[in-house]
Every structure is written in C-alpha cells, then in structure tokens.
C-alpha cells in the first residue's frame, strides 16, 4: 500500500444519526486487524451536505465518494479499495461521475470553473493511450448497456430525445439523422466520423481525439449498432499525426479487448473502424465531399438529396457525424436523455466546445453549456481583452461565420440565436477582435481563405467570392467606389442562396455581417479613404506634428524621398510622394509622427 490514503468521514448530524461514529470505530478495528493502523489518515469532517446519501465517506487520492456506508461494508472497502486499489463501485455515489471529475482536478480556477465538460470530460483526466484508464472512468459502459439492454430503436429514441444536434456546424438533429439512416434497408451501411477539422485556429476535434480517442470510438460503435452498420471510418486530417496515432492505438486496444471487431462483448454485434487520412482540403469537411474523398475521388460536394443517410459512401446509407457529436453519445446513453436535455437552451441542448483565439487573454479550448453568453465566454472565461484595449467584435463559426459587435455580447449562444445575429455556430471557432482591427480587412481575410478553399465546382462560390474579394481588396487599398457595398451585398446574398454546399452558402457571412454591423467602417474606407483602426496601410496618412525636433532621422530613412525639412526645424511629408511604408513612424524618437 504505497499510496497513503486519506479517509474523510462525514460527522454531521445526519451521518452521525446514521452511525458514522460506529463506522469510524469499525474502520479503526479493520485497519488494526490488518496491521494498517497509522498507515491511513482518518479524519472526521463537518457536514458535507449530501445528507440524503449519508453516511458519506470520501477516499483520497481519487476523490472517491462512498454513500450509505455501514459498518458491514468496512472490510470490503479496506480490502478492495485500500489494499487492492479497486474502489467498491456499488457504494460510489454516481450522480457526478462524469463531467465533474474534471473539475476535481482542475476546477478551482476561473478558466475551468465556469465550464462544463461533457465532450471533453476525459481530456486531461485519462491516459489517452491506455484503455484501462478509459475503463476506470466508465469507459465502454454505454456500449455494454446498449448491447445488453437496448434495442437499436431505443438507442435512437434516447439520442433523439436528448436533443443533441450536429456539432459540425449545421446543427442537424443527430437522432433524426440516425433514424433516417436506420430506416434505410441495406445489407451494407457505413458510419463515418468527420474529423476533418479545417477552420483555421480551431482544434476542438484534435483535442478531443488526442485527449480521449475512446469516447469517439464508443460513440461510433453505439451509432453503428443503432443504424445497423458494421463498418466505421474516421476521416481525419493527415496534419494531425498525434491524434491519428492515438486513434490507431485506441482502435487496436479496443479490438484486442473485444470492444471492437467481430462479436463485440459476446453480443453477436460486429463493428470495426478504420482510419482514412485527408489531405487538408477545407471543403472535405463537407459531408458529400468527404465521402467522395474516401471513395478516392476529388473532394467535391454533390447536390443533396440524396442525403448520405440514403445514399452515402459507395452509394450505401451512411451515418456521418462530427467528432464532438460522437463524443457526446456515451454520456447521453449513460446519463440519459433527460439529464442531457436539461442542459442548454430550448432548441440547443448540451454543451459546445469553442476554440477561443484572437485578442483575448486566455486563448484556448472551452466547453460551456449552450445558452452561455458571449460575454461570459470572452470576459469571464477568456479573461477579456489584453493590453487594456477595447472589445470590438467577435467572429464565431470559423472563416464562414459572422462578426458580432458589442451589442450582441449578451446573446445566449445557440444555433438559432447566432444565425439570427448573422453569424453561425459552425464548428466552434471564436475569434475576438479588438479596436486595433479593421473590420473590412477582417472580412477580406476570411473571404480570402474561403475563396482559396472553394472546391471550384459551383459558379457562385468559385467566381462570386473572387469578385467579392476583389472589391474588398479595392476598398482596403483606398480604391473603393460608390456602390461597392451594394455590390458586395448583392453578390453575397446570391452566393448564400445559390451555392451548392455549405462552404459557399456561408462564405459571404464575414462580409455580410461586417456590413450589417460595421457599415460605417466600410463607408469611411470608401468615402473618406480612412481606416479608423489604422490597419489598412494604403489608407493611413502620416503627419509630422509640432513635437518634431528636426533631427532628420525620418528624412534619411524615407525610401520615397517624401520628407523634407531643415535640420532643427519641423519636417514635412509630401503626401503625394508618400508610399505609406511607415518607416518614418517607426524611426521617430520623439513621437512626432502621427498616423491619421
């Protein structure tokens, strides 16, 4: 017994009434009889508050909470838990086993304290390369429950009533998707895990897999059982080598222990999973493009219907869900739809993982209940804007999401509210923008990404986003013209409504949302040739103020010969010659040059 155990016995009035003192005595006796006296710390505590379940005994390390303990249980606890290091599961209080485990370890800091971890419940808790570790946190229990006690239709009913919606971005009801796939009659069906995480700066799926590959596998096996599929494929970016390695290990370990492969857990149900690597095309996150890619074709979307649930991989019915969606499944099975659907908003249940980035103190991954406000995420969890700068906007949903201004900070995040505000949930990217950023340039940046990643198949996305990008570039270069905003709106709205797939349908979002919420910035760029964030180099005007000491340093560095002046006298910039390189601004030791 190398571990030194600390046992806390609740000695509050209720537990005392339920014989906590006698339990304490029995414990001392049992320890003495095994020669363990003095090797275990025992303390009595005041009321722990879980009176209904008393007497309460907490064993540390491990923070195992036993409830309803009696003197008769003591020999078993000592023998199993203290000697053999196996907690006595029948006595463990079950209600907070999953997501709270995380917070016992990490939860006493602000960043974690306000989160709720369901998809990420095991990340940081278990050794992701160790199946036993996963089993110790009730891993594969959901699978066992499903295979032993639930019919496929029960599983689907449970997922349906949980209210879980696709975490890949579109928010399609997961249970309905399962039902549609299950309904198809086919010898062969497929289950796909979409791990082609492509949004720049987003790493929800990678972290989930790297931290807990087993939950994703378990979700997929349950899904396969529910829809009648025997083959699963994980489509993951080749740029995620660690995640791939952990998945491979997890698949092998699970197969060796009978959780995967033929006749899983002796149930007669067989299901196996293989990994396919994606080559990094953003559009391959779109389900039909992803399916084409697995089939060996160029990753290009095709019109739906037929939906993959009817005609998917190799034309067979296919259930395709995102990593985060799959990771939620075991929890829903174990804790029930009722519990899951108690979290979140009316139409969006459970939690959502966000990757917060940009001008924010605590960049990183957060998992919060649906309905958490943007303000809570950005300021409470994220710690607000660094360097005393002002918040300007938050861009949600990755490169095809929208930018929301301060007025929307109290928006409760769910699929509908974000869509209403002109943005999207997307896969959970969240980029915070401060006052130093130019909204036109931000929109241009995102559009450049989607234009480059457009598969090139449909006209609106391929040609339309290119023209929008050209107009935006013109505006940021001070060559904007009257009517440009209207052109952007006209093209943007057409592209949204006419494009073939989600990429095109959402590509104009950054532009349309910035026009909606920051139209004045566009107008300033076009009419006044001004960028208030001083970000658009071509629109910045450098001016020398009275502070000028006439040192001539700026005159010497100016590559355009635009600065003139006599030593020890105030210098001047010839705006016609200035190429806006900013060298004078950086060189001036007196702070005498202003960006206007």
């Amino acid at each position: 017994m190398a571990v030194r155990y600390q046992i806390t016995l609740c000695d509050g009035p209720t537990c005392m009434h339920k014989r906590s003192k006698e339990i304490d005595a029995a414990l001392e006796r049992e320890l003495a009889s095994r020669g363990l006296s003095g090797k275990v710390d025992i303390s009595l505590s005041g009321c722990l508050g879980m009176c209904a379940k008393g007497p309460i005994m907490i064993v540390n390390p491990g923070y195992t909470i036993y409830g309803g303990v009696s003197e008769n249980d003591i020999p078993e606890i000592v023998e199993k838990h203290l000697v053999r290091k196996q907690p006595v599961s029948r006595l463990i209080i079950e209600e907070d086993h999953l997501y709270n485990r995380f917070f016992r370890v990490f939860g006493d800091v602000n960043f974690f304290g306000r989160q709720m971890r369901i998809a990420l419940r095991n990340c940081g808790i278990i050794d992701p390369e160790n199946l036993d570790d996963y089993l110790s946190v009730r891993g594969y229990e959901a699978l066992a429950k499903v295979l032993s006690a639930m019919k496929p239709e029960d599983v689907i009913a449970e997922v349906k009533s949980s209210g879980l919606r696709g975490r890949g971005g579109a928010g399609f009801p997961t249970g309905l998707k399962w039902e549609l796939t299950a309904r198809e009659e086919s010898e062969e069906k497929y289950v796909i895990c979409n791990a082609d995480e492509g949004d720049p700066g987003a790493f929800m799926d990678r972290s989930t897999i790297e931290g807990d590959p087993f939950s994703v596998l378990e979700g997929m096996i349950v899904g396969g059982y529910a829809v009648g599929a025997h083959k699963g494929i994980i489509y993951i970016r080749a740029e995620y080598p660690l995640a791939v390695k952990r998945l491979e290990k997890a698949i092998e370990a699970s197969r060796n222990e009978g959780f995967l492969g033929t006749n899983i857990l002796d149930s007669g149900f067989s299901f196996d999973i293989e990994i396919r690597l994606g080559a990094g095309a953003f559009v391959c996150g779109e389900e039909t493009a992803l399916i084409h890619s697995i089939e060996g074709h160029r990753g290009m979307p095709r019109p739906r219907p037929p939906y993959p649930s009817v005609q998917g991989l190799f034309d067979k019915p296919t259930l395709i869900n995102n990593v985060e969606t799959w990771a939620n499944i075991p929890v829903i099975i174990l804790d029930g739809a009722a519990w899951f659907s108690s979290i979140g908003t009316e139409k969006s249940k459970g939690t959502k993982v966000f990757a917060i980035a940009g001008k924010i103190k605590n960049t990183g991954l957060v998992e919060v209940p649906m309905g958490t406000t943007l303000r809570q995420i950005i300021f409470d969890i994220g710690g607000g804007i660094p360097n005393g700068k002002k918040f300007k906007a938050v861009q949600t949903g990755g490169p095809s999401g929208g930018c929301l201004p301060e007025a929307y900070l109290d928006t409760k995040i769910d699929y509908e509210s974000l869509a209403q505000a002109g943005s999207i949930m997307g896969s959970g990217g969240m980029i915070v923008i401060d006052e130093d950023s130019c909204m036109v340039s931000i929109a241009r940046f995102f559009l450049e990404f989607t234009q480059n990643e457009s598969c090139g198949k449909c006209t609106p996305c391929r040609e339309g986003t290119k023209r929008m990008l050209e107009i935006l570039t013109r505006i940021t270069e001070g060559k904007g013209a009257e009517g440009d905003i209207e052109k952007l709106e006209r093209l943007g709205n057409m592209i949204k409504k006419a494009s073939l797939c989600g990429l095109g349908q959402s590509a104009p979002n950054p532009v349309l949302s910035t026009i909606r919420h920051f139209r004045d910035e566009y107008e300033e760029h076009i009419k006044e040739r001004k960028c208030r964030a001083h970000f658009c180099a071509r629109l910045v005007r450098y001016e020398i103020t009275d502070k000028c000491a006439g040192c001539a340093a700026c005159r010497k560095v100016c590559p355009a010969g635009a600065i003139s002046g006599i030593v020890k006298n105030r210098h001047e910039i010839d705006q016609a010659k200035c190429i806006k390189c900013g060298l004078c601004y950086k060189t001036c030791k007196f702070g005498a040059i202003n960006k206007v």
Partner: protein
Amino acid sequence: MGNMIKIHINGKPYRVEPGQTIMQAADKLGFHIPRLCYHPKLSIEGACRVCIVEVEGMRNYVASCAYPVSDGMKVRTNTKELRQARRDIIELILDNHPLDCHTCDRDSNCELQRLASSMGIKKRHFEGERKQYDMDISSPSVIRDPNKCILCGRCVRICSEVQKVYNLGHAYRGFKTVVMPAYNMPMAESVCTACGQCINVCPTAAFVEKNVTQELFTKLNDPSVIKVAQVAPSVRAAIGEAFGLAPGAALEQEMTAALKRLGFDYVFDTQFSADLTIMEEASEFLERIQGKGRLPMITSCSSAWMKCLEQFYPDLIENVSTCKSPMSMMGAMVKTYFADRIKKDPAKILSVAVMCCTAKKYEAQRPELMVNGMNATDMVVTTREIAWMIKSAGIDLLHIKPERFDEPLGLSSGAGTIFGATGGVMEAAIRTAYELYTGETLLDIEVEDLRGLKGIKEGKVVMDNKEIRVAVAHGLGNACDLLDIVRKDPARYHFIEIMGCPGGCVGGGGQPYAGINSIPLDEDCLKKRAEALYNLDRNKTIRRSHENPDIQRIYKEFLGRPLSATAHKLLHTHYKAKGPRGITPQVAIGMKG
C-alpha cells in the same frame, strides 16, 4: 396514373409523376428553366447553379436539375430575385471568360452566348481578374483552351462516364480550378483517345478540333498538286445541320458538288473503301473461324477505339482485325492504284479526308499507316470544318447542282453506307461473310437487332449450321463493358464491332454542333442521322460489298484477291501496346470501389 403527385409551379397546380426532378417535371409542363452544366446523358453535377428555382420552405434556392419533386411542393421558376440571381451567375461566368466572341470558334453556336443573350445581360458589374492559361495544342485532334472553360464539367463526365477514358479531371481549387488531363499532361501524351466527345458536349470553345481549314485553303489553291478528297458516310448525314436543316437530311451529291467547287480535282467516297474493308475483314473473319487467328475478332475502323485498345486492352490486340480503317484504305488506294491509273506521281497527290471524326486526324499521323514512305492521308477535316469552308467560299450547299462521286473510287454499295451507324459494319460484314462462307446470298439483310442506340447489342447468324454470335458496342464506355465480358468469357462471341463514339460515326466528335432547339448528342438527332444512312442503303440496288463492280474491278486489276500479299501490304496494319502516361481506367475504376 394513380400515384401522381401534386405540385405547384408559379402558383398553378399540376399533377406530375413522382421520382423525377423539378427540371424534368417543368420541362414536360412547358416551363423551360435555363441550364448549363446539365446534360441528360451525364450524371447530375449541380455545378453551374443556373437552373436554380425557389421551393417554398427552403432557405436557399435549389438546383432544379438535382432536386426531386415531392407532393405538395411549391416551386417558383421565374421570380424577380431568381432572374437577378441567374443573371448574376451568368455574369460571373462571363466575367471570367475571354471577350472574343466574334473571333471564337463557337461564335453563334455557343451555349453560354445564347444563355447570356436570353438572360438579357447588357451591363457587367463584377469584372476583375480573368484566368490565363496556355492553350494545349499538342494533340493533332483536340485543342484544349482552359481560358474558355466555364467548369461545367460536362467534358469530365463524358470522358469518364460515357467513354470511360478518365482522361479529364478538375485540378486545383477556388478561382484557380481548371480541367486538365492527369498531371497536366499534354493532350497528345495523355490517355486521350481523340474521340472528340468533349468537343461535342462543351458548351463553349474550351475544347475544339485542331482546325486545318486555312492550310487546306492554301493547298487547294496550289495548281501543282492533285487534290483528292474522300468523304465518310456520316458526313453526308449531318452536314445539312450546319446549314440549318433538321437532322436526317442526306446531302450526298450536294456535298460532292460543293467539294468540287471548293477545288478538289477528285472526290471519292469513303463508302467505297468501306466496301473494300468488308471484303478484307469478312475474309479475315472466315479465316479466323476456320482456326487461323484468335476469336472473337474485333473490328478496327474506329481510331479512338484503336488508341483505347492499345492503352487499356493490350491483351486483346490479337483479337483485333488487321484491316486498316476505310479512311486509311482509301488513302492507300489513292496513292497507289489511283495514282497509277491517272499516271501521276503519288507524291503530287494531296489526299484529304472529310470525316465526322476528330480521332481520324490522329490516325492519319500514325506512321505504320504510311504507304511507300508517304502519308496515305495528308489532311483530315471534320464535318464542321468542311461546312465552314463551304460557307466561307460562298457555296450554296442547299441549292447547288448535285454531282456524283468520281471513278474509280466513288461507287459504293449500301453496305458501305451503313458503316456510319452503330452496328453497320457488322451488318455489312454479315452480308458478305455469309455469302463467302455459304456460297448463298443472304436475303434478309437488315439486322434489326444490331441497329439502334442500345449500348451493347447482340445477334446471331447461322451460316451452314454454324452459329455465329456477334456483338456491337458504341461509345468507348460500352466498349469497355463489352471487352470486360470478353476478358471473362472469350468464347461468348465470334465477331464484335466497336465504334468509339455514341451512336457510331454519326455521333462523331467532328459533327455539327447542336442547334438552338437541340442538345449535344441528342438521341433523336443520332437516330435521324442513322436513319438517313439506312434510307440511302435501302434505295440502292447494290447492297452487298462484294457486288460492287468497282470493288470487283480493283481486285481484278490491282489487289488480286482479299488477303493477297498486295492487300496485306496496303490494306492491313498492326497495333502495339502503349504504356499510357497518366491514369489508366483500370486504376480509376478500382478506386470507385
């Protein structure tokens, strides 16, 4: 009719059959939804987005080519917003398209141009950078101009789905997307079979034939050469379409007269050499069924098919007839037999083939087809090119005084005529082989089983109690399917006809573009062209190749007998396995799962 469903189009209720797309239902009801990438013979691409419509309850527009009708659906095809969206989409395509309509090969025959005009595009709002690629002029047959490409994907689909050659695919992403052969291989080095079907389905001029009309005009003006033309059967069945006639008009003698007026000294008929082909091929077949050579024997008239064979079915090369194509046989006869007869130096003869085909341009350059160190065929022009030359030279094809083909290579039997339609070669061969084998004349000579547009057709002939099983495939995709059967079951057929293009030569890659009220490779059009040939056959008294007196004469005077040493030297050839660079169809099919 009991399971009809009700849909609304533009506010009015209609009963339509379920299981069809909005576009199909609308077409039948007289609503023409504009379209571009859609082609009924090809899979649904849904790429151009021109055919978008509004469906009540849907957040976005849907592509009517892809979206199925459902009961109670309310569709709008012609709202103000839709009209603007469609116009914007066409404008976006035009903005990335060269502004050279008036000098373009497809001017006045361009689907994009027609669409832009019907959309009423007058102003351009979004012009900017335009794509700039080098043209691929490496192929003697097919020119690829990515600058004209609007990425509708029809060429990619016909090349892979109908022809199963898999030469073309999309490359790169976003604005840089371009259609090209694998690894950007030049067309000449790619697995392209030169069939030209990409040209047929291309709505613009991203694929065109290698145009040699200016060169030909120059040579026609050269008094030092003897200008000899030969014309393939299918040209006469389609050339009228280029002059505004409905498909199905046969303009044999008008065309001959026009060619003479263009400056040709002699105009011969490829149908004559088709008869010659039949003499050789039927004889070769009889040898093979008597144990000399591998069965099934496969025809060798189609040049695209020959390249397909060498690349993808090299194991079947021995099965293919050693006969040259009718074009190359004619070329060989022109440079030998005919040159002798007119007592001229064959080197002074310009041998021009007017073909319905782009692959013939490639065939003409094959070195093994040379005769005495000369090209048998010096130049090949397509139906489209010759139609343009006739117009350009101010010749009124429709009202010209008809003329006959010249002797001694101008007289043909009906068997030679039907070469142009799928199944025709087989039918013609049966007419002669039967008589050569049994010594009796085959009376029931129209083999209906082998006619029509079914992909693979099968038939049987009994010759002296011997059952001969034959099969016919048209389009390289069907050919591949048929050959896959042969690979598994070599004894299933004795004789196979393969034509590289859908419908046979009448659907060749060099035929006139579809008119305003038609679509490329329209089945009705192909049937009418074939019917024109069958009618010519029916109206002839000589309908079997061996009955053609000029054929009998050429054997008597020059060739001796079929398969003689002279015949072998001049009328037969050989094929070589080619290791294609790029992706082979086997690989591509394997990837499909």
